[in-house]
């Protein structure tokens, strides 16, 4: 009897040590929720998991036709389709991650009102499900690189750091918007709208060169965008392009670290009130 663990119910916030323990204790739940999102999304669809690849592929194709063929934007010496697809791919991890996470807690309202588990699991699982999509889409990128004979370089070592950085960024923003959205549903709408706008100021389908050549003063402003640096780092890792602005990346990275800390802090502050205000 005495070896049984004791659960303490008190008004205090969860300690950081406890959060670490929860990671281990609830890992089964985290995996299952990721799996639930992935499998539910494509249930009763005719082409199933093919949708995962279809979405970024189609948007990259449209970009390639409009910007690569008609507007003839510079693409750092890469085939424009490869350039656009690599941008869309990493942008998708970020934008889809936040988009799914921001509504996730509200969508599972019935669940969190009836059972306890650490609340961060839900948005994290949403971003996790995007990471699965991302992995599948990366396979297509590999095929594409092979077809266009873009050779792998030592920069490939940067693939994981770039992806992890974007994953963390999406998780942090997803956590904050999900918690805020529990009280004011405005935040989900704001996130969706904000992401649409942000895609156009991020180097998803154009390169920093075009900004540098036409509006050099705006360049530092461009890198205040938290995704500007990570997108370029990701593109560097998969294509080994020689166009990479280190100072720009450093600026973005600094913004990212601050943003992650602020967002996690917001979630931590709101966490305990979610169930009462949702």
């Amino acid at each position, binding site marked *: 009897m005495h070896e049984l663990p004791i659960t303490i119910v008190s008004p205090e916030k969860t300690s950081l040590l406890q959060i670490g323990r929860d990671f281990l204790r609830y890992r089964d*739940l985290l995996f299952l929720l990721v799996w639930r999102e992935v499998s539910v999304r494509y249930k009763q669809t005719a082409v199933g998991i093919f949708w995962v690849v279809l979405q970024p592929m189609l948007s990259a194709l449209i970009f390639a036709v409009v910007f690569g063929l008609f507007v003839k934007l510079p693409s750092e010496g890469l085939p424009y389709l490869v350039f656009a697809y690599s941008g869309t791919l990493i942008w998708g991890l970020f934008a889809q991650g936040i988009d799914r996470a921001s509504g996730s807690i509200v969508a599972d309202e019935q669940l969190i009102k009836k059972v306890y588990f650490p609340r961060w699991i839900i948005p994290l699982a949403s971003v996790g499900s995007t990471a699965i999509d991302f992995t599948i889409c990366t396979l297509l990128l590999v095929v594409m690189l092979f077809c266009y004979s873009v050779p792998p370089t030592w920069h490939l070592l940067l693939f994981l750091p770039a992806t992890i950085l974007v994953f963390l960024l999406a998780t942090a923003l997803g956590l904050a918007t999900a918690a805020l959205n529990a009280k*004011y549903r405005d935040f989900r709408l704001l996130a969706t709208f904000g992401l649409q706008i942000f895609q156009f100021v991020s180097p998803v389908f154009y390169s920093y060169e075009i900004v540098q050549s036409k509006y050099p003063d705006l360049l530092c402003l461009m890198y205040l965008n938290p995704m500007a640096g990570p997108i370029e780092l990701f593109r560097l890792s998969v294509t080994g392009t020689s166009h990479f602005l280190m100072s720009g990346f450093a600026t973005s990275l600094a913004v990212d670290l601050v943003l992650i800390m602020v967002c996690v802090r917001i979630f931590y502050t709101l966490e305990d009130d979610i169930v009462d205000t949702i």
Partner: protein
Amino acid sequence: MTSSTPSKTFTGSILVEKLSKSYPMRMGTGSAQLKFNEVVSRQLARCFSPGQWGQKQGYFWALQDVNFEIHPGELIGLVGSNGSGKSTLLKLLAKVTKPTSGRAFLRGRVGSLLEVGTGFHPELTGFENVYLCGTILGMSRAEIARNFDEIVAFSEVGPFLQIPIKRLSSGMAMRLAFSVAAHLNPDILLVDEALSVGDASFQKKCIAKMQAFVASGATVIFVTHDIGLVNKWCKRVLLLDKGRLIEDGPASAVMPKYLETVSPLTSYRIQFEENPLAEKTGLSLCELVVNSGEAVRHGLPFRVDMTVKTLLPLARLSFGIVLSNLDGTRLVSCDSDSPGEKISLEANRIYSVAVTLRRLDLSPGSYLLDVAFRQDDAIALDYRPGCLRIEVLAPEDGIYSANQRASGTRPVFDWTLDAK
């Protein structure tokens, strides 16, 4: 004294100390939620009127200064009228929400069953849902795998395990959900009115399972409005009223006090709070009037008028009322269903339902009225056990001896006496 240690030695199963929970006045339910612009204007108003600085808005205490200790192997009934804080207490113990002040200590694994079917996803198959629901309730994957065959056998839905839950009948889904929860094997089990959903045999199964837990040394706290259940099974009962624990003791001592708090004697009319499950079940009872507000008398007709609101289209319905004595023994029951003839209702309408007993045979005394709206004879769409306490009086011209009052029912009868 730090907050992580109990103020006295903790040897039992659950120790609750000065547990309180408050909600800001206008928060909580979605509809009463503050609008963003209201918050802004309120904050602005506070900035410009320094007198109000630091002044807090009103708070509603859902639970206030609750203390008790429970030992292993106890089956505790938690009773109280609607809004008395029962569910809040369970939610605090289950860690679903945090207390405003006070602490509680729970020894061992805590399983909470605040709703049957928590975590079930309609698109997933029964097989997948067993894993999902089990994990959400706190089982590891290995544990579920170990108990899987037993869970399926208990639920009796084995042949339908590969079909999405949305294609199963709600009764089947519920059996599967309960079956998962029943194999949680916790040291402490918290059960909110989960039992009131479902048919009698399902309830019996739940009770048997809870007793098995208790027999093996686990502790069970369960919330219910069903007086019969409490009297029969609970040695100890906690009574909450307006967020305070007002009674803690054996059922025989606590239940009479509960009856006083739950339904005032003279009431022949009751306005219901909306059924919390109405969105799912599609039906909520709004109002109930007995004998058009007139006194209820033995030997005279007895009529119950109800107003119900529907949210979904409903088919195969039946209604029922039951009158029980204060121990929970059912004395009179009137069900609407005659076989083959079931009622269907349209969505988003208000209906009035009435039942008339041509003659009420209950002896003068106090009785409790249960009302139930069911689908397929099994699933309770809205069930209000003991919602009204009814005083049956003697007819105005009748005088009853104490002996006559003591009997349960007094039908119409004729005596004959012949000399032989």
